[in-house]
């Protein structure tokens, strides 16, 4: 699993403070360093300055939504391989499809519990190391 020395960076993008708080607490308990962004533009600035292992992206945000933010992340060569996970209460098939088309790697449905978070992180860990392992 994840080692202490290899503390990973995670970016949470959500306009809702409570949601960010939930993610932060859960991730910090799993030894992630959590950086929060309350909007798309804020997230883009952070992605430029820092290296993240994964981005958890809320879809519904005023101004620039999660889909657009993801597209911009993907359009930049520096960050086009960055795993982006949609964090959404929109659960229809159509909306999940839109997420994947925007370049997101996975969808985490709100509300989520510990098991779902663990499963997602395991999946990301496997995907990131997969080809090299």
């Amino acid at each position, binding site marked *: 699993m994840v080692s202490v020395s290899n503390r990973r960076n995670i970016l949470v993008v959500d306009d*809702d403070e*409570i*949601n960010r*708080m*939930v*993610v932060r*607490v*859960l991730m910090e*308990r799993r030894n992630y360093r959590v950086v929060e962004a309350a909007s798309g533009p804020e997230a883009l600035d952070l992605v430029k300055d820092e290296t993240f292992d994964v981005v958890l992206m809320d*879809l*519904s*945000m*005023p*101004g*620039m*939504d*999660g*889909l657009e933010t993801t597209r911009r992340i993907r359009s930049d060569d520096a960050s086009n391989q960055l795993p982006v996970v949609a964090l959404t*209460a*929109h659960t*229809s098939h159509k909306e999940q499809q839109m997420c994947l088309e925007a370049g997101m790697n996975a969808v985490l449905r*709100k*509300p*989520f*519990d*510990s098991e779902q978070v663990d499963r997602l992180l395991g999946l990301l860990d496997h995907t990131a190391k997969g080809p090299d392992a």
Partner: protein
Amino acid sequence: MSAHANTPERALPGLSGSAAKQTRIKGWVWPLQQQIAVMVLAAILVFALVIQLWNYRTFMNTEIERTQEKHLVIAQNVSLSLSRYVTDVARIFAHAAIEVSNNNSEATRDAHLSLLESLNVESMVLLPTFAADTPPPNRLGSDLPLPEQAVLDDLRAGTNTALGGVQISGLQQIGDGKYFILGYELADQRLVIGYLKTDYIKAVQRAIAFGEFGHSAIFDQFGRAIAHPSARVEENMVDASGISAVRRMLNRETGVEMFFSPPMQMDMIAGITFVPETGWPVMVPQPIYELSDAVNGSLSKSYLLAVAMAALLGGAGWAVSRRLARPVRDFTEISRKISDGDYTVNLPDEERSSTEMWQLNESLKTMIHRVRSSDNKLREALRLEEEENKRKSDFLVIAGHELRTPLSGVVGMLTICREQKDDVDRDRYLDVAWSSAKELNALVDHMVDYAEGTTESIRLDPVTFDIDAQMRDMEALYENLAGTAGLEFRRTGLGDGSTLIVSDPARVSQMIAKIMENAIKFTKQGSITLHSEIFQQDDRKWLKVAISDTGIGIDEAQLERIFMPFEQVESSFTRSYRGMGIGLSVAQAIANKFGGRITCASTLHEGTRFEIWTPIELA
């Protein structure tokens, strides 16, 4: 039900289809124009036929009348000339007979012979009496054989007084020639006979020839031909007394007769008369067909006229039928389009081909107008229903999301607490879960209010209460809420004294709450003012509550839509404001129930002012 794309041009079910086009005409049906054309043509033909028949009869009758005159006049002229001739012949003959019998000198004989010859009397013979001692016949001119005794006897017994005592026989074949034998009895009872040639009679007969076969014919007093265009008839002295016309003339009749001519093998029409002195029939016949020819000549002119008329009438008929058929065809085309659901058809403003077509056009215009407007209403209703459906389904999606946001707060916090039971911040997490749960509850209340509002099940419970006190309570509540949102709050008007009114305080509070929540939600900075007053208008007492904010405002285009439910709900991920957009429509529904209204005035980026007007009673 899924939301349909809004397609106004889509044909309405039940109104579309082309049932008319699919119906096949059974049996044989002609286009109107052809029918009219055929009828007009038939009418023209019958008309022309009748006219021609009538013309023929008229022309023929006229022609026959003219012929009667013409032919009769000619016949009478011939008769007159012959009458004169035979009278002269008879006089000269009698004179010569007497002179020669008295003075049988050479000179007398020669003088009288030449006189007689000039009148075609070729020979004169003084016959002896029947006594045995009579001298031989005294002969002047050609030596012709004596006629039969019967002829001589008839002459001697003759009683004709018209010719001064001269008797005239029927035509006789004497030798090679044909002669009339003239007879004159001298005082001494001797009979003088003369041989009268037919040359002059023939010449008169020959002189009359007209048309193709129009001629004259002269017969002797027994009906035998003297002069006739047919050489055979003339040569053989054919007895024509069997022919009706000849019989009439022998009976000394004058007039016009139609008969069949055996030698000509034709139907003839003739002017008939006779020579009074001799009783010779004189006729001037002409084949009837020649008259027809003349008639036909006139007729052909009238044919031409008829053809010209037919062409004219035909043209007129064609034009009329076109005039009739064209609008009918146009109307048919238009009604076909309408039955196919195309109401965009344009009828002529003024149909002027006929009164009936004008009326038809007008009633069609009215009909199309009605159908079009009811079709538009149907489409509009359908569109509204589709819009409503779309809004509802969008609402369900958004409502689900909106409910899930606080719910995920609750679940998230509970997950944190469950995962690590000894976390020092556990109480804080539980507080957040609690407030999220309350938010969830408020949303559910909203939805219930909305459902109540849209199902018209709002109940009003009017009671007497102090509106000033209620406004003070409002002030306390919203001053707090606005303060939390970083906004200034002001109350003006009611709220300082005590005013008892009759209304439903809970519903009044509900309306104010919906609009106040709205104002706080859409105002980032500045202030919110709650103003209330009671005033009289239209014989009623009104409670007016005005809520003004310095928020984002609403642009004019959206202003009229804000009271429609779900209007705030855009199905996009970039909505700036939470909520389902049903607060205002709930408030409006309550105001309507009161018999009041909510008005809204707004300037984009500057602020919005709502006014709630509620009719009340003063206690």
